[in-house]
């Protein structure tokens, strides 16, 4: 009925939705969308390094994004520039360096568009293994640091005072962000991955009154987006990443009506 590549894309997308759902909630709660963007932009540099050194792409992206995150923390301590300026600086300079480096690698044929916007055809069985095994590890780690991370998201001082060690949780969470970008870049593309983190979470926020519900709805929103996006991508021959994000946006718009209803009920 469907070609193998489509089944693979679907299985990969389901895996990605399960990871981006919970992490996306934290991205929204902690206002990290631009931070996510910056890490994603640095992925191009990671891919270039991987190609020139013949190294695993996902691992290289993960390491590059982690280094950029560390670099950002150092810059924040040492300069008086506001956070968003630093994020922009790192995002665009790493994107620029990545593109320049690709220019030098003229001996390698390389699909830049696929990297920017995601490509169904590129998903291999090997990628599936990486997404699912990596995804399980990410979710287990998130489960493990959930309490301190969530408590410090609500109020840092309470978490610190009551001995939850929020700084460690925050550092681990940063690594998880780098990991989720490394895993999903092939599916969604580096320009759109933050959308996959934020839009399903935003959809979920409109439907939830507790943090746990929001996480569950965020996963459901991600799954629906992947299904809708991939099927329409197949039908209309559109690129996979943008189709998934468009589907997510449609879900978000629908969820707005639910909000209107609740507000009406309250009044």
């Amino acid at each position, binding site marked *: 009925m469907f070609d193998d590549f489509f089944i693979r894309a679907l299985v990969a997308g389901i895996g990605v939705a399960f990871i981006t759902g919970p992490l996306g909630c934290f991205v*929204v709660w902690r206002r990290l969308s631009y931070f996510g963007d910056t890490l994603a932009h640095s992925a191009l540099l990671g891919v270039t390094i991987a190609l020139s050194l013949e190294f695993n792409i996902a691992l290289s992206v993960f390491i590059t994004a982690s280094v950029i995150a560390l670099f950002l923390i150092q810059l924040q301590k040492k300069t008086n520039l506001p956070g968003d300026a630093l994020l922009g600086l790192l995002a665009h300079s790493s994107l620029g360096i990545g593109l320049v480096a690709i220019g030098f690698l003229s001996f390698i044929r390389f699909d830049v568009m696929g990297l920017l916007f995601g490509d169904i055809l590129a998903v291999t069985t090997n990628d599936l293994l990486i997404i699912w095994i990596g995804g399980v590890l990410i979710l287990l780690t998130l489960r493990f640091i959930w309490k301190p991370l969530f408590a410090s998201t609500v109020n840092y001082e*309470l*978490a610190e005072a009551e001995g939850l060690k929020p700084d460690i949780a925050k550092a681990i969470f940063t690594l998880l962000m780098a990991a989720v970008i490394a895993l999903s870049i092939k599916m969604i593309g580096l320009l759109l991955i933050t959308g996959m983190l934020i839009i399903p979470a935003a959809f979920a926020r409109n439907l939830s*009154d*507790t943090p746990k519900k929001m996480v569950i709805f965020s996963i459901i929103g991600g799954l629906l987006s992947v299904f809708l996006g991939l099927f329409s991508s197949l039908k209309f021959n559109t690129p996979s990443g943008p189709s998934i994000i468009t589907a997510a946006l449609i879900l978000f718009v629908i969820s707005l009506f639910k909000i209107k209803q609740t507000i009406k009920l309250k009044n």
Partner: protein
Amino acid sequence: MSLDKNTLVRLKDAGIKQDEKWLVQGVSLEVNRGKIITLIGPNGSGKSTTAKIALGIYKNYEGTVEKFTNKIGYVPQKISIDWTLPLRVADFMVLTENLSADEIEEALSLTGVNHLVNKNLGNLSGGEFQRVLLARAISKKPDLLVLDEPVQGVDFTGEIALYELIKKISEKLNCGILLISHDLHMVMSATDHVVCLNGHVCCSGSPIDVAKDKEYKALFGDQASQTLSIYEHKHDHEHTDDGKIKQKN
């Protein structure tokens, strides 16, 4: 561990500097099991800062801080919670500790807000929120309670009831309480030990001793000490405008 098992936290000559200026300095105090110790002092005198040093929120302090417990309940003076988070009172109660529904119910009943358990935290009034904060701090049955203006925004009758509750909690849980309060009547009636701060420790001792202290009167006015007998002692130092001790020439 400390030689004295009853000590929960001990500050020795602790202080903190920001941009070359001392926020508070030379604070020595001890919170012991079953005792209520209260910090008083004017605005900006370093009460909350001292509490945060004791709690380990501020890490770049000078002097020594020894903590002998990790079971701590904290009610901060100011709390900025992002109301875009979908958070009910019940979710907030289990923020740092896992509690059963019964334990949540019990703690909220103590502060008189168990009817709010399923309400969104953002929809509470100031007084209601304060009661939830206090309930959360005591629900985990801590060894050490740090309460920074715990009854702000609570109506007058509620205030008295909550202070009685705090006193009862310290006896029932046999925990130590570090309290910051503006309510001098409460301070005088329920506290075991008072530390009067003004950038440094002005005076400390039992409530009666402190009320008689000339420095206390200088800070809070005669009105505040009128309830207690007047006793004068020799004032051995003077203050500059920012509360520091004036150097004698």
